[in-house]
């Protein structure tokens, strides 16, 4: 035994789970929704996804190289951010807009605050909101192409497909939900509707979420309390009108946001109790933004605003510590 022994502080064994594993599991979970997006919106959707993922990774690589920091692109987090941003953009956006979004997400929101684990807002959503404010007309351009038109239903007047051979400007289903309306809920649940690349199919997003929950990558608390509290609030405020409520839940970015963005590790409270309240706050905010806001969508704003509340939520829900509570069940 000529070599020296290794000495370190206990524990001397480690689990097999790595940051990388987690990020790639998230990518896998997003795959069905991405494929659905490409199926619905064709080559433009694929282009947006590829540009977005590529730009994110490249931005991270360039920044870290130039700053002489360890390059962390192999952990997969930049890919996740890139894909998430792509999924919440319409397929019609120009390439330069995608690049601006990704540079903003990775450089400004993530890296300038210290890289992975240090950002206080979800990078993908912050970038989306940034684009939404700066380029609002392009970000809300849901024009459908010929490719798309025979794949989606026009959810406004139930199940008639958009009957036009030329590209038409069509609203997302979320923009056209009105009290008392009837909706083709099945199509909305399956995702045969207009919208951003990745938000259309509630089913596939939920499947991704279940996959992540089964492998304990995310916890079910936030998606459940978020979607649940939003649905209850909407149901109450619409006078128990079930159809629009279900349509509201299935459309827009709610499920994408609740499953993949509100559960983002870095920007959600770390305590279970905190996550519960965080979910409730998200539901409330989304309801307020959607019900009273100018735009039909409110998920992105709700999440990034709630991100700002996370430190407070965490401080208020600190775990008590084992055996520190005063009450005792036995006589001493």
């Amino acid at each position, binding site marked *: *035994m000529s*070599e020296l*022994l*290794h*000495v*370190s*502080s*206990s*524990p*001397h*064994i*480690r*689990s097999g*789970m*790595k*940051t990388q*594993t*987690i990020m790639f599991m998230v990518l896998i979970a997003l795959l069905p929704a991405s494929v659905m997006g490409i199926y619905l919106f064709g080559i433009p959707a694929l282009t947006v996804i590829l540009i977005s993922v590529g730009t994110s990774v490249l931005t991270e690589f360039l920044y870290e190289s130039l700053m002489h920091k360890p390059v*962390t692109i192999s*952990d997969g*987090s930049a890919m996740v951010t890139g894909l998430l941003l792509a999924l919440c953009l319409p397929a019609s956006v120009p390439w330069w807009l995608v690049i601006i979004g990704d540079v903003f997400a990775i450089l400004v929101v993530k890296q300038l605050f*210290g*890289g*992975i*684990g*240090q950002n206080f807002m979800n990078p993908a959503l912050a970038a989306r909101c940034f684009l939404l404010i700066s380029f609002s007309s392009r970000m809300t351009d849901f024009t459908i192409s010929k490719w798309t038109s025979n794949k989606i239903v026009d959810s406004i007047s139930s199940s008639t497909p958009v009957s036009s051979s030329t590209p038409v400007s069509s609203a997302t289903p979320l923009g056209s939900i009105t009290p008392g309306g009837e909706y083709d809920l099945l199509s909305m649940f399956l995702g045969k509707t207009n919208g951003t690349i990745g938000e259309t199919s509630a089913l596939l997003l939920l499947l991704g979420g279940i996959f992540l929950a089964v492998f304990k990558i995310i916890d079910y608390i936030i998606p459940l309390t978020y979607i649940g509290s939003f649905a209850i609030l909407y149901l109450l405020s619409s006078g128990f009108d079930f159809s629009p409520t279900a349509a509201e839940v299935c459309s827009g970015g709610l499920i994408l946001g609740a499953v993949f963005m509100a559960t983002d*590790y*870095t920007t*959600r409270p*770390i*305590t*279970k109790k905190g996550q519960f309240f965080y979910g409730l706050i998200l539901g409330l905010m989304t309801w307020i933004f959607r019900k009273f806001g100018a735009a039909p969508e409110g998920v992105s704003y709700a999440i990034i605003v709630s991100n700002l509340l996370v430190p407070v939520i965490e401080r208020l829900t*600190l*775990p*008590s*510590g*084992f*055996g*520190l*509570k005063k009450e*005792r*069940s*036995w*006589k*001493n």
Partner: protein
Amino acid sequence: MRLLSFKGGIHPEDGKELTKGEKIVRTAAGDKLYYSLSQHIGAPSVPIVSKGDHVLRGQMIARANGNVSAFVHASVSGTVEGIEKMRMPSGNMADCIVVDNDHEMREVQFQADKLEEMTRDEILKRIKNAGVVGMGGAGFPTHVKLSPPNPDKIDSILVNAAECEPYLTGDYQRMTEEPEKIMTGLLAVLKLFPGARGYLCIEDNKKDCITAMEPLCRDHNIEIKCLRTKYPQGAERVLISTVTGRKINSKMLPADALCIVDNVETMVAIGEAVINGKPLMDRTITVTGDAVKNPKNLSVPIGILHREAADAAGGFSKAPQKIISGGPMMGNALISLDVPVTKTSSGLLAFSEDVVSESEPSACMNCGRCVEDCPGRILPTRLADFADRGDKESFLKYHGMECCECGCCSYICPAKRHLTQSIRSMRKILLDEQKKGQVKVK
């Protein structure tokens, strides 16, 4: 049987199959034995032999120094060579009485007696004179533990047979091979606390032990509690809460929850001391790991070197990179094998690969796995941050002192951060300051 469990905890690969079923083999001592004067918590013992003295196996060679301290006995017969500073498994240096083994193993006359005829004080005195300490790792003198300020109120005696540390199988073998010895010890403790009920707390991966122990419990006020296999089920505070539902914090003692907890090996030592009058001279130690040629459970004389224990298991089949005294979760990495086995050495692990130095820590992404798995219900990632930044105030505010250093957070961390290490360092700094009266710990 209903499985009891607790919140948090992890399921590490247990590695027990290497030595499960390997009968405990007696190991002969080498030429020189090293009896540390600091094998327990509390003041170091005071030697009562001097150079050139001839000692017998079982003869007292150092006496307790103060209330929280323990006697030390020779485990072989031979000549005292003097006192030498040796490195201990913990990494500290300690004075050791060196005995030159004459390989004759001549013993002192042990005074056997009947439990029925003993008084409370007699039992305690026998345990004290035998130098019994908590052999699970803490090394708290057992006679002190068994003299709580509220003896009449104690209602539960827990035998900690969880053996939740991966790889270790010493307790398992004890229970399957010599269940009656554990029972003897437990009955002696129950005699001290007539109002208490005995509980054998066994994890459900040790069904054979339950089968072996069950018939012995029938005629006594003893119950077997089957616990779900999960680390750290055997941590004292976790165990008490799992079995009795009473949660104590780090400042409290088991007696505050009306419990006495002793592990299997300690119970055996208590039994031997009380009934046979034998002091603590040997202990079981599991020698295992992928670098060990023939992983085994050994019964070794206390004071032999770890090197001799490794040789008794056939030495190494591969070059070990890391050698650990104790279990992989809470044991100490050894600098060299020339470190004596003490009363608290439960295992010797040799791994050909060191997963810790192979994995580079990266940034925390706040995933919360450490929080979820922390049995102490605290926030390891935040505490490690405070510790790294030297923020003592926040560390205390976030209940950093409640950490039991079980290692779950470091084990589970996907970013491979050394959370336990950071927290442990800060705790040590604060405990030292507290001793000097600089910082008041809430």
